[in-house]
């Protein structure tokens, strides 16, 4: 019994300690938030982005000429709008956080822009591609380094027509990402004069696509356009093989990742995809980024949008170095970004905060590697699609 009393007193004491110590002030670092999906189905992209943002912060903290010390506050939005609003509120309501690098999933970004506006937190979107995120509002706080799906699909459609393809079948997932891509691709294609033979909206969690593919087989298009992310894309490309289908597989930015090649294996040869931004590996800064990323030994690869998260974080830090840690000043300064050099090419924000220098890079998989089209043996005529 004595032991019990002793223990309970100890307990009360330690709880008091806990409260008292947690009342202490935070250290003098400048906080930037990163928000993306760290758990659940699309966490691969989110973790790649988180690591890249983290890398940007670490590199800057190591730089001798940096004025401030920075700290990254990473939050998980699970790719769910409601959780996104929660964490966005958490970040935006925290006055210590001065800016954010936010969102991979478009539906989440759509839900949170109001929150950032309300609390005045300037953010740069690093991965979500729905045009409405920047163009659906006139909030000064919202910026985006990556291009939208409009740019991507215009380039894609024109390019494919130039390669003498004329008929498509579309498989897209029914999330905002896949549906949006389909919408803009269809629009671009009708302008360029291609035809879509059939469209198949599918559930991204779906495992088996043989029924849809059999239907496509009957339509016999030249190209299968896939709007969606790597996991679904891997399944579809593998299952095409099951049915003996040899159509050209054209994807969107969502499949530009090593995961796609790893998942598909040998079948990946000749798969096409398009991504906003200059090819990371061709810019001097990009090479440095890839090397530094490698050196950190992260558990996860940077994925397609890691470079954007890195660029966005760096852009924010550059602005803070210039104007100091003040949300309003950062916001206004960000809006004046013109031709800022980054690892994804120069960044210029238009009136809506959208990066207008929409470089779209065309990729093709050659020998299990994403190769920029212009450098590939396909472009030089040594290999042929199909």
């Amino acid at each position: 019994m004595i032991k019990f009393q002793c223990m309970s007193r100890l307990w009360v004491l330690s709880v008091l300690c806990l409260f008292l110590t947690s009342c202490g002030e935070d250290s003098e670092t400048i906080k930037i938030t990163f928000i993306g999906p760290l758990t659940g189905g699309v966490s691969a992209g989110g973790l790649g982005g988180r690591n890249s943002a983290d890398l940007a912060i670490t590199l800057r903290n190591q730089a001798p000429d940096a004025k401030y010390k920075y700290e990254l506050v990473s939050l998980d939005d699970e790719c769910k709008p409601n959780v996104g609003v929660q964490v966005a509120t958490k970040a935006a309501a925290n006055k210590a956080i001065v800016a954010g690098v936010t969102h991979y999933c478009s539906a989440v970004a759509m839900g949170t822009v109001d929150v950032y506006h309300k609390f005045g937190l300037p953010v740069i979107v690093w991965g979500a591609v729905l045009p409405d995120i920047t163009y659906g509002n006139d909030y000064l706080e919202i910026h985006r380094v990556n291009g939208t799906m409009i740019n991507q699909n215009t380039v894609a459609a024109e390019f494919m027509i130039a390669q003498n393809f004329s008929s498509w079948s579309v498989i897209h997932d029914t999330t905002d990402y896949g549906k949006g891509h389909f919408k803009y691709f269809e629009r671009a294609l009708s302008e360029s004069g291609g035809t879509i033979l059939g469209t198949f909206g599918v559930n991204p969690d779906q495992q088996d696509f043989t029924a849809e593919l059999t239907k496509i087989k009957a339509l016999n298009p030249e190209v299968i356009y896939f709007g969606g992310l790597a996991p679904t894309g891997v399944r579809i490309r593998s299952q095409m093989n099951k049915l003996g289908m040899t159509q050209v597989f054209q994807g969107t930015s969502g499949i530009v990742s090593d995961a796609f090649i790893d998942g598909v294996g040998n079948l990946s040869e000749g798969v096409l995809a398009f991504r906003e931004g200059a090819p990371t590996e061709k810019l001097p800064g990009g090479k440095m980024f890839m090397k530094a990323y490698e050196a950190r030994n992260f558990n996860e690869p940077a994925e397609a949008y890691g470079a954007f998260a890195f660029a966005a974080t760096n852009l924010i830090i550059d602005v803070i170095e210039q104007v100091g840690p003040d949300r309003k000043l950062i916001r206004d300064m960000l809006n004046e970004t013109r031709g800022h050099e980054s690892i994804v090419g120069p960044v210029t924000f238009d009136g809506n905060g959208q990066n207008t220098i929409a470089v779209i890079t065309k990729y093709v998989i050659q020998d299990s590697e994403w190769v920029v089209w212009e450098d590939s043996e396909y472009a030089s005529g040594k290999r042929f699609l199909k």
Partner: protein
Amino acid sequence: MDLGFFAQYLINGLVQGITYALVAVGFTLFFGVLDVIKFSHGDVLMLGAFTALAVFLGLDQLASPAWLSLIIMLCIGILAMGLLGALLCKFLVLPLKESPPLNTLLITLMFGSVIREAVRLFFPNGSNPKPFPALLPEASINWGNLNLRLDSVILIITGALAIVVTHLLIQKTRIGLAIRAVAQDEETARLMGIDFKKTVLVTFALGSGLAALSGISTGLYYQEINFSMGLMLGVIGFSAAVVGGLGSIYGAIVGGLLFAFLQTLGAIWFSVPAYKDVFAFAVIIILMAWRPTGLLADRSAERV
């Protein structure tokens, strides 16, 4: 419709249906002995596939021939999941026997999400889909528009065989007798000297082993596995078991095939194939209203 395409749909549906049926048999077994839903079933399936993949990657370095690798993968995968199933039962399911049955559901649900998150985090680069080796012969016959592959045929036969063996195990062996006795009436079975705990553990091991088998065959068929593959398969397997009639192996088979059939039909009918799940589940709701205890469950009157 062209006959070739028709046959293609049929084969696709059959492979899927057999996979669903294998999962459903697990649900039916657990329900039979313990009257519980084990919601982690789909995730156990996924873990089985990942275990097999890990084994393969290990064997790959020893350069073992494909058939040998396959056998070792199957053995280790099934045994490991059987063991996991038994452990899960022993430490999480049986201790909750006296509490509300839904709590078992919750604890297995959480266990499933722990497995899922653990694979995602601790399997190297586990948040991305993983290629699964194509160890089955890939020969195929092109017959009109039908592309019939040898591996599909092998998988259909293996799946069917596994179900038949399970059925025989339950109908013809001593342990099968014990399982049936426990399923009939736990109290009486105990009085007859049947080791209740052991029987339940064996059943869980059996069901989980089957899940591993279906996980591995899913991997072999699609040549790709990912950490969330068990989610939908689990829900569909459960639906198949229930529609067929819980407690009946035939019911599980019928339910599995029916579900695959509905999905394929939905994919053919609707211009947006994502409606196929809406369609399949809507039909299921109607079927349940028509046959409240499933299609094949014995509808003996309740004892009053």
